[in-house]
């Protein structure tokens, strides 16, 4: 298989490989969330730069799917640095209460008025949640509250929403503000 000149038959083989991997992962993890498309998304990232140099990634050359991602510019004013914080308080099931903290000095693009509570839409992984961005005059940071709601109105803890998508305590994250929604993404190291 020549990666620079894939044939239609190559594409069929690649799709089958991704289908098999998705089925295998769903069996291992007892889920239905893994799809050939997600396997393709993962494979696409390998071999591409993801460091602080923030070089534009080329448009995908995949012949299997046609994603159109382009790397964001580091100076993009719609991205805000934040941290996943554990509060040292625990739910009855033993999980720690998490919030997302944003330094006031870095929060200008969030459109938040200090001392208020702003309803926000959070995109974490593939799920959208409703939450609240809060601050006080005395705290040095804004925070996204520990309680969020999914699109069906079910109450979810932020720790579960984050943990289910691979985020961990003290992880640096980027909040990409787009069309009124805050997308929580891992920070490049």
């Amino acid at each position, binding site marked *: 298989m020549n990666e620079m000149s894939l044939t239609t038959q190559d594409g069929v083989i690649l799709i089958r490989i991704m289908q098999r991997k998705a089925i295998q*992962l769903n069996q291992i993890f007892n889920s239905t969330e893994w799809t050939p498309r997600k396997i393709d*998304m993962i494979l696409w990232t390998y071999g591409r730069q*993801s460091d602080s140099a923030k070089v534009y990634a080329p448009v995908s050359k995949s012949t299997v799917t046609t994603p159109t991602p382009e790397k*964001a510019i580091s100076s993009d004013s*719609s*991205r805000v640095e934040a941290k996943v914080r554990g509060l040292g308080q625990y739910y009855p099931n033993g999980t720690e209460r998490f919030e997302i903290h944003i330094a006031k000095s870095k929060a200008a693009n969030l459109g938040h008025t200090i001392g208020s509570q702003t309803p926000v839409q959070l995109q974490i*992984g593939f799920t959208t949640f409703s939450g609240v961005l809060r601050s006080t005059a005395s705290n040095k940071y804004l925070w996204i509250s520990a309680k969020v709601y999914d699109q069906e109105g079910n109450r979810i803890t932020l720790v579960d929403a984050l943990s289910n998508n691979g985020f961990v305590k003290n992880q640096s994250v980027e909040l990409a503000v787009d069309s009124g929604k805050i997308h929580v993404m891992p920070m490049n190291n």
Partner: protein
Amino acid sequence: MMITIDELWISENLMDWKKALQRYWEFVKPSNIALEHGSASDE
């Protein structure tokens, strides 16, 4: 340190796979995120 594709391919650790999938979104412009989410869920 990012897990290699060889290691990931045989990994049975859910977090390895979720983190690998997360990494995709580092490459997506904020203005394309909604479009990409639609693409990823249209299956």
